[in-house]
C-alpha cells in the first residue's frame, strides 16, 4: 500500500470479511475475556456483583478442572507424538509399496470420513464390559491369559488408554494423507545423489527425508497440539456426557459443563477456564514456533 489513494479501496474490499470476523470472532473473544473477570455474571439479568480474579482462583482450585487439565495434558503428550510417529511410519511404508498403494491409502483414510460418535459406538462394543459380554478386547486378553479389564467404567489408566487409542486412531488418517504427499514431493534426484555417495538408509532418512518434509511435520505437530488441547467430543463418544463422574473430562468439556451441564449456569467460571485454555495453547504454540526455527527447513 504505497499511496493513501489506493488504501481506502483495499479497506473497502476487506470490509465484509472484517465485519463478519469482528462481529462473530473478535467481539465474542473480547466478551469472554470480560466475563472472566466479572464475578457471578448472569445471562438472564445481565448482572454481576463484582470484578476481580475470583473466577480464576475458583476454577484453578476446582478439583474437576484440575482433573480436566491433567486428562488433557496426558492426552496431548501421548497422542500427538504417537500419532505423528505412527503416521510417519505408515506413510513411509505406503510410499515404498507400489502395487496396492491406492487400496491401502483408502483403508487408512476411512477413519477420517467416519462419524466420531459412530466410531465411539464401535469402540464401546470393542472395549465395554457388560453383564452379557466382556467385549472383544477382553476376550483377546483372556485368550492370552490375562484377566478382564473394564475399559469404559473401570480404572483410570484403562479409560485413559481407550481415550488415547481412540484419539490416535481418529487423527491419524489426516496425518498419513499429508505425510504421504509430503514424501512424494521429495525429488527422486536427492535419493539418487545420496545413493551414489553411498549414504546409508538411516542417514538418508534423517539427513534428507526428514529435513525435506519438516515443514509438513511441523504443521502436523502444531495443529495436533491445538486439536488435542481442544478435545471433547472423543471423550463424550466413549464415556457419555457425564464426564466429571467418569473422571475423564477435558478442559473444553469443563467449559461446556460450566455453561450448559447439569451443574451449569456459570458463564464467568466457563470464561475463566476458556481463557486459561487459551493461555496454555498460546504458550505451547509459541514454544513450538521457537523450536521449529532451528529444525524446520523451508
Amino acid at each position, binding site marked *: 500500500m504505497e499511496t493513501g489513494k489506493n488504501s481506502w479501496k483495499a479497506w473497502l474490499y476487506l470490509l465484509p470479511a472484517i465485519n463478519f470476523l469482528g462481529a462473530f470472532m473478535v467481539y465474542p473473544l473480547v466478551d469472554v475475556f470480560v466475563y472472566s473477570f466479572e464475578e457471578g455474571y448472569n445471562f438472564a439479568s445481565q448482572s454481576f456483583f463484582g470484578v476481580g480474579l475470583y473466577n480464576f482462583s475458583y476454577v484453578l482450585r476446582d478439583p474437576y478442572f484440575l482433573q480436566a487439565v491433567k486428562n488433557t495434558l496426558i492426552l496431548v503428550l501421548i497422542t500427538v507424538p504417537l500419532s505423528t510417529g505412527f503416521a510417519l511410519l505408515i506413510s513411509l511404508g505406503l510410499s515404498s509399496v507400489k502395487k496396492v498403494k491406492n487400496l491401502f491409502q483408502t483403508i487408512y483414510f476411512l477413519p477420517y470420513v467416519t462419524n466420531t460418535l459412530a466410531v465411539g459406538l464401535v469402540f464401546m462394543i470393542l472395549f465395554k464390559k457388560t453383564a452379557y459380554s466382556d467385549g472383544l478386547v477382553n476376550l483377546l486378553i483372556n485368550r492370552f491369559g490375562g484377566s478382564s479389564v473394564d475399559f469404559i467404567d473401570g480404572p483410570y489408566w484403562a479409560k485413559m488408554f481407550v481415550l488415547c487409542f481412540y484419539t490416535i486412531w481418529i487423527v491419524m488418517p489426516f496425518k498419513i494423507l499429508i505425510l504421504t504427499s509430503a514424501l512424494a514431493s521429495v*525429488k527422486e*534426484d536427492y535419493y*539418487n545423489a545420496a*545413493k*551414489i555417495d*553411498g549414504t546409508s538408509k538411516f542417514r538418508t532418512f534423517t539427513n*534428507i527425508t526428514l*529435513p*525435506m518434509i519438516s515443514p509438513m511435520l511441523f504443521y502436523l505437530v502444531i495443529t495436533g497440539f491445538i486439536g488435542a488441547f481442544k478435545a471433547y467430543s472423543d471423550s463424550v463418544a466413549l464415556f457419555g456426557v457425564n464426564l466429571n463422574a467418569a473422571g475423564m473430562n477435558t478442559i473444553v468439556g469443563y467449559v461446556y459443563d460450566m455453561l450448559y451441564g447439569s451443574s451449569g449456569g456459570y458463564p464467568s467460571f466457563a470464561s475463566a477456564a476458556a481463557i486459561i485454555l487459551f493461555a496454555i495453547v498460546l504458550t505451547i504454540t509459541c514454544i513450538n514456533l521457537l523450536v521449529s526455527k532451528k529444525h524446520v527447513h523451508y
Partner: protein
Amino acid sequence: MKVVLQNLTKIFPGKSKKEADQVVAVNDFSFEIPDGKLVGLLGPSGCGKSTMLNMISGLQKPTSGHIYFGDDEVTYVEPEHRGVGLVFQNYALYPHLNVKQNIMFPLQNLKGKNKLSKEEMEKRVTEAARFVQIDSLLDRKPAEMSGGQQQRVAIARALVKMPGVLLLDEPLSNLDARLRLQTREEIRRIQKETKITTIFVTHDQEEAMSISDMIVVMKQGTLQQIGKPQDVYDDPVNLFVAKFLGTPPINVFEGKAENGKIYIGNDNVLYAPEVRDGEVYVGIRPEGFIPDPEGPLCCRLINIEVMGRDMSVISANNSAVSETVRSIINSDAGIDTDSEFIRFSVKPHKIFVFDKETEERLY
C-alpha cells in the same frame, strides 16, 4: 580408469505385458572410453543418453550386457561401490544444507578404514571448493546462489570423493548462453587437471564438439558413430550423423547417381565412380560451397546475410529437402546480390552421398 561397455541393452517394460509396449532405451551398445578422456554422449532428446549414464553410474541395471571399469566388471555392483561422481541435470544439491555441508556429505558416508578425520574432511572440502572457485561461498545455502555457482558446488561434491569416473548429465542445459561458454571451458579445465575419465551427456552438438576428446553419437538407443569431434564431422557414417552435427546444419538434396556421376536435379556436382546407379541423398556442408560462375550447381538467390568475417548466402533449389540452402562464404568473394541465380562449385571433401533407403553413407 577406462570404461568399457559391452552389448549394453536396457529395455523398459510397457504398461501392459505385451512386447509391443516395450521401450528399448539402449540397444546393444558397445564402446570403450580410454582412461582420462572427456567423452560427450550426444543425441536428440529421448535417445537413451540419460539411461546410458544411469547404467554407468549404477542407478539403473542393464537388461543385458556388461560394464567394466578398468579390468573390473561392475555391471551388478551397487552405485556406492563403483566410485563414480554424478552431477545431476538440476544439480540435486540438498537445499537444507549449506555449500560446505553439501560438499562434505559424501565424505561423511565413508565407513571403516576409509573413514576420515574431521580435519581431513575439512581439508578435502576446502580443496574441492577452491578447485571450482567457490571457496568464498561455503556458508551459503543453494537457494542463495546462481545457477552457475550451484553447478560448481555440484561438481565439487562429485569430485571430493575422488571418483574414478565423473558423469555429468546435461551439465550446461540450465545455464544461460554466456555462462554456458564459460562453464564448458571450466569443465574442460577441471577434467584436464584431475585427469578423471569424464562422460557427459548433451543434446547440444556444439557443446559436445567444443570440449570433448571423443564424441559418441546416439539415435534411438543405438550407437551411430564414435570418434574425435572433427573426424565425425568430416566423415559421418550416415545421414543422421551428418545432419546432427554442424551449425548451420548440412544442406540435403535429393539426387541420383548415373554412371558414376552424382546429379542434383540436372546439375552434375560430383564424380564418384564407386556409387551404384540409383536414387541418393546428397549432403553439402554450408562451408563446402564456392561461388563460381562456371560451377555446376545452380540455385535461386534469395538473400545474403552479412556477418562480417563471412556471409551466409541463402538460396533455393528444387531438389533441396529443406526450403532454403544455406552456404557460408568468405565475405571477400564478390557476389552480385541483384542477380536471380547463383552458381556454385563444391569442395569435394564437404559433400557426402547417402543411400536413399538406408541413409548409409555411399561416398
